[in-house]
C-alpha cells in the first residue's frame, strides 16, 4: 500500500484499502481560521444542544485578515474569540502567532503518521513532516466540529522521485514550480503525491514549500517520508519521539503514475499570470518590470527563506520603483529573524515588514495591487484578481529570485548574484 492507503486503512480501521474505497475516519485535529465564525454560525442550534466534539480537537488560528482591516472582520474575530472561550477550546492562536499551517507544524499539532483536516486548501502542507492532511470545506468542518468524524475516499497515488542535487541559486520552490508546470494544475487531481529519492537535501522548511503547493496541482495530500531531518526538527521544537509513529509506503506499493526528476538540471522557475502551471524558466521572462515583491507567506515565509533574502539584500537597496513586503510565517520565525539580524538587514534595505499572517496573498489588505501593476511573489497562487485587482499581474518565484529582482526592479535570474 502507498502512504495514503496505509494511513487511511489505519484510521479507517481496515487491514487493506484500495483507491476509490470510502472510509470513515476520526482525524486527530480539525483546523479552522478566520472562517471559524462562518462555520459555527451553521451549527448554532446544535452547538447549544450538544457542544463541540471535544476541546482539544479543533485548532483555531486567526491569520487571514489580521489585525482586523474593517469593522466587519473585527466583528468576525470577536465572534470567534467568544466561541473559543465559551467552549473552552484548547488550541486557539490569536492574531500575530502565525499563519495557520505554520502554527500547526511549529506547535507540534501536525506530526508524522497523524491525520488532519482543515478548512483551508493549503492544509496539504503537513505532508512536510509525514502527516496525512487535506483541505475540506466549511460545511464539512462544521459537521466535524460536532461529530469528530467524516468520510474520505482513498486516493490514487503518484510517486515522485527526486534525484541529484540542486545547484546554488535554485530552491525547493523552483522544484515544485517545475513539477506543476510539467504535470499541470490538474495533473494530480484527487491523488496523494508521495515524494522520495534524494530528499535529505531538503530541510523541513523546503519540504513545507513543496507540500504546500500540492493542491496547486490538484493533490489531495502530499507526503515526505519522515527521516532524521524530520525527527531532529521535532526534537528541536520539543516533541517527544514517543508522541508519534511514522507511516511509510510499502516497497511494493502500486502507484498510478511514477515520475522522476533530476534536480541537478533544474533552474529558477517563474509561474506567470494567471495560473500556477504557466511556468517559464527565469531567463525567458527576465527583464519584466515589477512594482511589488512579496517574500513570505505559508509557502516561503520561514527563517531559511528570510535568511537567503537577507543574504542577497545585505548592504543593498530595494529598487526605488519597487515595494518589498516581507511576511514572516509566524511569530517564532519573526523572533528568530530578529535575533539573527535578518530583520534589520531587510528594513535597512527598504523592506516593509508585515505582521505574521496571510497579508496581501489573498488580496484582502496590506499590499493590494493597482490596475496594470505587477507583483513578483513567493506565495502559492497567481490567479487573476488574487491580490485584490483583476487588472494586475502576479508572478511566482523562489525567495532568492524575488530578492534579487527587488534590487534590480525587473525579474532577474538569482544565479547572476548567488555565485557560490
Amino acid at each position, binding site marked *: 500500500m502507498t502512504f495514503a492507503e496505509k494511513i487511511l486503512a489505519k484510521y479507517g480501521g481496515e487491514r487493506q484499502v484500495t483507491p476509490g474505497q*470510502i472510509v470513515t475516519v476520526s482525524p486527530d485535529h480539525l483546523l479552522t481560521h478566520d*472562517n471559524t465564525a*462562518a462555520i459555527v454560525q*451553521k*451549527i448554532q442550534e*446544535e452547538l447549544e444542544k450538544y457542544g463541540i466534539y471535544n476541546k482539544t480537537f479543533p485548532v483555531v488560528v486567526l491569520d487571514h485578515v489580521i489585525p482586523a482591516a*474593517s469593522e*466587519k*472582520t473585527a466583528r468576525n474575530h470577536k465572534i470567534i474569540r467568544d466561541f473559543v472561550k465559551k467552549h473552552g477550546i484548547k488550541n486557539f492562536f490569536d492574531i500575530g502567532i502565525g499563519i495557520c499551517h505554520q502554527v500547526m507544524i511549529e506547535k507540534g499539532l501536525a506530526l508524522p503518521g497523524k491525520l488532519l483536516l482543515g*478548512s*483551508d*486548501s493549503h492544509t496539504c502542507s503537513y505532508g512536510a513532516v509525514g502527516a496525512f492532511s487535506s*483541505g*475540506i*470545506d*466549511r*460545511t*464539512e468542518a*462544521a*459537521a466535524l466540529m*460536532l*461529530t469528530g468524524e467524516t*468520510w474520505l475516499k482513498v486516493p490514487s497515488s503518484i510517486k515522485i522521485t527526486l534525484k541529484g542535487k540542486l545547484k546554488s541559486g535554485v530552491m525547493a520552490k523552483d522544484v515544485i514550480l517545475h513539477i506543476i508546470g510539467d504535470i499541470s*494544475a*490538474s495533473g494530480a*487531481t*484527487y491523488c496523494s503525491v508521495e515524494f522520495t529519492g534524494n530528499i535529505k537535501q531538503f530541510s523541513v522548511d523546503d519540504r513545507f514549500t513543496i507540500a504546500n503547493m500540492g*493542491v496547486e496541482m*490538484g493533490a*489531495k495530500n502530499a507526503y515526505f517520508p519522515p527521516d532524521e531531518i524530520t525527527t531532529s526538527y521535532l526534537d528541536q521544537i520539543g516533541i517527544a519521539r514517543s508522541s508519534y509513529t511514522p507511516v511509510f509506503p510499502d516497497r511494493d506499493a502500486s502507484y498510478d503514475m511514477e515520475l522522476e526528476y533530476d534536480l541537478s538540471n533544474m533552474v529558477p522557475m517563474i509561474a506567470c499570470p494567471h*495560473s500556477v502551471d504557466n511556468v517559464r524558466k527565469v531567463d525567458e521572462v527576465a527583464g519584466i518590470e515589477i512594482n511589488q515583491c512579496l517574500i513570505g507567506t505559508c509557502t516561503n515565509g520561514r527563517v531559511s527563506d528570510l535568511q537567503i533574502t537577507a543574504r542577497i539584500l545585505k548592504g543593498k537597496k530595494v529598487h526605488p520603483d519597487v515595494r518589498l513586503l516581507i511576511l514572516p510565517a509566524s511569530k517564532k520565525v519573526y523572533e528568530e529573524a530578529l535575533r539573527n539580524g535578518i530583520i534589520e538587514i531587510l528594513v535597512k534595505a527598504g523592506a516593509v515588514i508585515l505582521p505574521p499572517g496571510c497579508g496581501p496573498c*489573498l*488580496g*484582502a489588505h496590506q499590499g493590494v495591487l493597482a490596475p496594470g501593476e505587477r507583483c513578483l511573489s513567493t506565495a502559492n*497562487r497567481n*490567479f*487573476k*484578481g*488574487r491580490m*485584490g485587482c*483583476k487588472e494586475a499581474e502576479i508572478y511566482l518565484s523562489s525567495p532568492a529570485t524575488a530578492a534579487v529582482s527587488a534590487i534590480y526592479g525587473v525579474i532577474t535570474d538569482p544565479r547572476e548574484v548567488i555565485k557560490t
Partner: protein
Amino acid sequence: MIIKGKAIKYGNDVNTDVILPGRYLHLTDPEEMVKHVLEDLDPDFLKKFHIGDVVVAGRNFGCGSSREQAVMCLKYAGVGCIVAKSFARIFYRNAINQGLPVVESPDAADIIDSGDELEIDINEGFIVDKTKNLRFSFHPIPGFIKKILEAGGLIPRLKKLGEE
C-alpha cells in the same frame, strides 16, 4: 432528482478566485454575492443565465481555495448543476455539502455546447442533450451522498439525522 436547463460552457481550470473574487469574500447577503458570480471569468454570465441552467466546463473546475462562497454564489444564483470533465476535489465536496449537484462526465463536457438544452438525472446517472439528441451516462453517486444532496446539504442532513 432531475435537472432541466440550458448549458453555459467554459474552459479548463475555472478557479475559485474567478468564481467569486477575494474582494467579495466579506459579503454574506446572498443577493449581493450573486451579483458577482463568475464576474472575473465572464462579466455577462448573469445576462445569459436563467434559473436552473447548467454550467458546463473542462478539467479541474473549482480549483484553488476552499472558499465555500464559490459554491454558495453559484447555488444562490440558481445554477441547477455543474457538469465538468473533472472537479478540484475540495470544490466537489463543497458542492455536495451545500446541496449543489455536480456531475463528472468528460464526454458530455466535451460535446455539449453553450445553449444546448439539457436534462440530467442524478439518481439514474445520465445526461440528455436535447438539442443534439445525445445521451451520456455517468457513475451514479453513492447512496449516502445522494441523501446529503436530497436534504439540501450536509447540515440539513445532520439535523435530520439528529431528529431521527
